């Protein structure tokens, strides 16, 4: 078909361009899994420990980050791997898929490079096909290596293959979702944002379904996150659910193909309309300009976090019910039902804090892209001082972080209030999330500090951010030592409602954040502007 002319060449080109990038993904994902197999085996060596762990995985938090809980009755190495690893692997693969697809489709078009290629002998859908095929190759390699590492540990061969294949197919499905999003949106960044939003929703579908009913209900089956575990590897293997991935990829690819045929190169499906001929009264300073630029993103993040909070907050009924019906679970987890609700909400609050700090950091980094794009130069050539410009950017970032934090807390609280029929929760969770304000601001403040003093070191931010996420999400599971846990920015403060709020650490942490902000302003004032 002429729409795919040149796909082969593009595949080789993409593999060449991304040889390092893809190699890192493959090595990290397959390597981490291969290392986890013996680690998990050693960590829970005696059967009693394994069953205690299984009980934990049957709790709501366990379901959110574990899965529907197949194989918990006999929690041997196979089921343990499936329950403990799947969600983290799928999330990482989703990130990899979205970045890869957008990078090779919409971002190429946006930069104008696609125009150069399309002027040659190249079909309209060749870029999408090449991106999806290279992605599939990488995922199949990851899945294959993971399956091999399981077989090497004497796990049943068919189940290992099913698991590896399922992971790869799920990864490819996320890529197909991103391919559709790249057709709809005109910009690489918004295409990736849209894809992450859709994938986030699909994750929630599975969580809601799995929590509502043991083994999941119809909501779960709507989500690619569910099908892999519905194949029940290492429990009672059935292959049919994996076929859903094939159907999903096929349908999405046909949709992408149809959309690509309907539009011009470079254009989105929604045509750009003329805008106002002059600036409104609001757009008169750099603060309002920063706000204007981020308006859409701030609202989207706040609403998404609010919805996330509400969906998870309303699960607290299930938490309470589960504990009522299984008092021994409460005993194993150490505490009564109220403690567990508090613990559940504290964990969710931490996720809200992570989301808010991610936005805050991205928002500060926008100042860096403005500087690199030369737009800061244009503004600073007017009667706008540097401290004014950069300070406004930081103020917008801080306000947006606080807003996202509060909306997440509000969502959690509303959900919990409805579920537990106690309106008091609304305020309590908002309070809990605000008690983490310094932790939410710290990455943005550090990004600002580096931007002001040593912008070349900016990527280091993501290193610490990534470490903090991993330590806080998985540190408990892998029993990180105390001093390693404390290196996570999210572990520094007490976590209400589970723990009591402490004023002194809060003020100290906040003071450090403000100091970093002040130092960043003086650094930015005194350094050369980075120019194109």
């Amino acid at each position, binding site marked *: 078909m002429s729409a795919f002319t040149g796909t082969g060449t593009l595949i080789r080109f993409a593999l060449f361009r991304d040889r390092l990038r893809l190699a890192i993904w493959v090595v990290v994902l397959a390597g981490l899994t291969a290392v986890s197999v013996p680690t998990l085996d050693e960590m829970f060596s005696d059967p009693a420990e394994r069953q205690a762990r299984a009980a934990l995985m049957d709790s709501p938090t366990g379901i959110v980050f574990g899965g529907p809980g197949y194989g918990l009755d006999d929690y041997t190495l196979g089921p343990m791997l499936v329950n403990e690893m799947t969600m983290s692997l799928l999330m990482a693969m989703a990130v990899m898929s979205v970045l890869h697809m957008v990078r090779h489709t919409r971002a190429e078009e946006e930069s104008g490079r696609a125009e150069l290629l399309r002027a040659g002998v190249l079909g309209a859908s060749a870029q999408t096909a090449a991106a999806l095929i290279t992605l599939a190759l990488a995922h199949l390699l990851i899945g294959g290596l993971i399956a091999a590492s399981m077989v090497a540990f004497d796990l049943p061969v068919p189940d290992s293959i099913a698991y590896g294949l399922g992971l790869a197919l799920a990864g490819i499905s996320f890529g197909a979702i991103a391919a559709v999003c790249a057709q709809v949106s005109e*910009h690489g960044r918004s295409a990736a944002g849209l894809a992450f939003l859709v994938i986030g929703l699909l994750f929630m579908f599975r969580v809601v379904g799995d929590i509502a009913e043991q083994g999941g209900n119809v909501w779960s089956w709507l989500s690619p996150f569910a099908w892999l575990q519905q194949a029940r590897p290492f429990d009672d293997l059935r292959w049919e659910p994996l076929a859903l991935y094939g159907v999903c990829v096929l349908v999405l690819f046909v949709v992408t193909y149809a959309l690509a045929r309907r539009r011009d190169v470079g254009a989105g499906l929604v045509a*750009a309309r*003329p*805008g*106002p*001929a*002059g*600036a*409104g009264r609001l*757009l*008169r*300073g*750099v603060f309002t*300009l920063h706000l*204007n*630029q981020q308006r859409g993103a701030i609202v989207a993040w706040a609403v998404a976090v609010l919805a996330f909070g509400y969906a998870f907050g309303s699960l607290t009924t299930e938490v309470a019910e589960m504990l009522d019906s299984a008092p021994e679970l409460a005993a194993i987890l150490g505490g009564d039902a109220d403690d567990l609700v508090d613990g559940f909400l504290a964990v969710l609050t931490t996720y809200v804090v992570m989301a808010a700090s991610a936005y805050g950091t991205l928002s500060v980094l926008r100042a860096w892209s403005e500087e690199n*794009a*030369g*737009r800061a*130069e*244009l*503004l*600073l*050539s*007017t*009667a*706008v*001082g*540097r401290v004014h410009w950069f300070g406004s950017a930081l103020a917008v970032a801080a306000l947006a972080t606080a807003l996202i934090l509060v909306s997440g807390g509000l969502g959690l609280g509303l959900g919990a209030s409805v579920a537990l029929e106690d309106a008091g929760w609304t305020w309590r969770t908002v309070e809990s999330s605000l008690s983490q304000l310094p932790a939410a601001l710290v990455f943005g403040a550090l990004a600002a500090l580096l931007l002001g003093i040593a912008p070349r070191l900016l990527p280091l931010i993501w290193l610490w951010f990534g470490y903090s996420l991993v330590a806080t999400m998985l540190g408990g599971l892998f029993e990180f030592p105390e001093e390693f846990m404390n290196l996570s920015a999210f572990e520094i403060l007490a976590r209400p409602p589970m723990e009591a709020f402490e004023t002194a650490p809060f003020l100290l942490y906040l003071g450090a954040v403000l100091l970093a902000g002040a130092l960043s302003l003086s650094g930015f004032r*005194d350094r*050369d*502007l980075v*120019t*194109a």
Partner: protein
Amino acid sequence: MSPRNAIEVSGLDKSFGRFKALDELDLTVRTGEVTGFLGPNGSGKSTTIRVLLGLLRADSGSVRLLGGDPWKEAVTLHRRLAYVPGDVSLWPDLTGGQAIDLLGRLRGGLDARRRREFLERFELDPTKKARTYSKGNRQKVALVAALASTAELLILDEPTSGLDPLMEAVFTDCVREVKEAGRTVLLSSHILSEVEKLCDTVTIIRGGRTVESGTLSDLRHLTRSTVRAEVDADATALKDLAGVHDLTIDGATVTFAVEHDHMGTVLHELTALGVRSLVSNPPSLEELFLRHYGDELTTVDGAGNKGKRS
């Protein structure tokens, strides 16, 4: 009260790491004049302008802009100037009109009538989002914002590099009007005809150093005219005259370059040979430019010494 010189730069040094971008650069822009700032890519024009705007800090040397220090007094000084970057980058989701208003407001006000006038003259649609603009249209946005301001100094960094010839002509008219209104312009450019048309004085830099500066006639004075003549007698003797270069003889036609200081004696000799026709071309800026950047000029320092470096 404006100082006599809007811009005074002397002995300016600026390094990025080990790379010396500016090396003892001198630049003077007299108030009320249009000064051309010429140099090839990477010669330090934009770096100089960014130092003038207080975006980069000078390593050493003295820099005065409108009588002030551009690094310390950036904000106050910027109220009095308008800048058009060489590569204009705008906010993709703002329209051109919004960007013009924003830049004007941040500079301290915009004349609505002039804004309308320049939008019309540059045929710019202000309702389009910046992401749909071509390079030339983005440049027009910055030009309209700068020209519609009441700033006393305009700093223009290769402002016509994306414009078509028609728009270049509009730009030329606009700069003439700006000059008539008594405003000062620093115009960095590659386009020599533009500089020749517009500028009162020219500064040429290369490798971060000023190699030549002065009025156009000052600079022409330093160079050679090309002379072509038909003569009756054998012209080989001209070769030995001081100030004559590149002599070629093709039958009766003789062509050579002559240094202006020696023009009198050469003409005298030529008359003696029996001149039937004579054409003499003054050097164009292109030739000036080539002298500084062309292969012929291995002795840049020699040329620089002849210039008005002080």
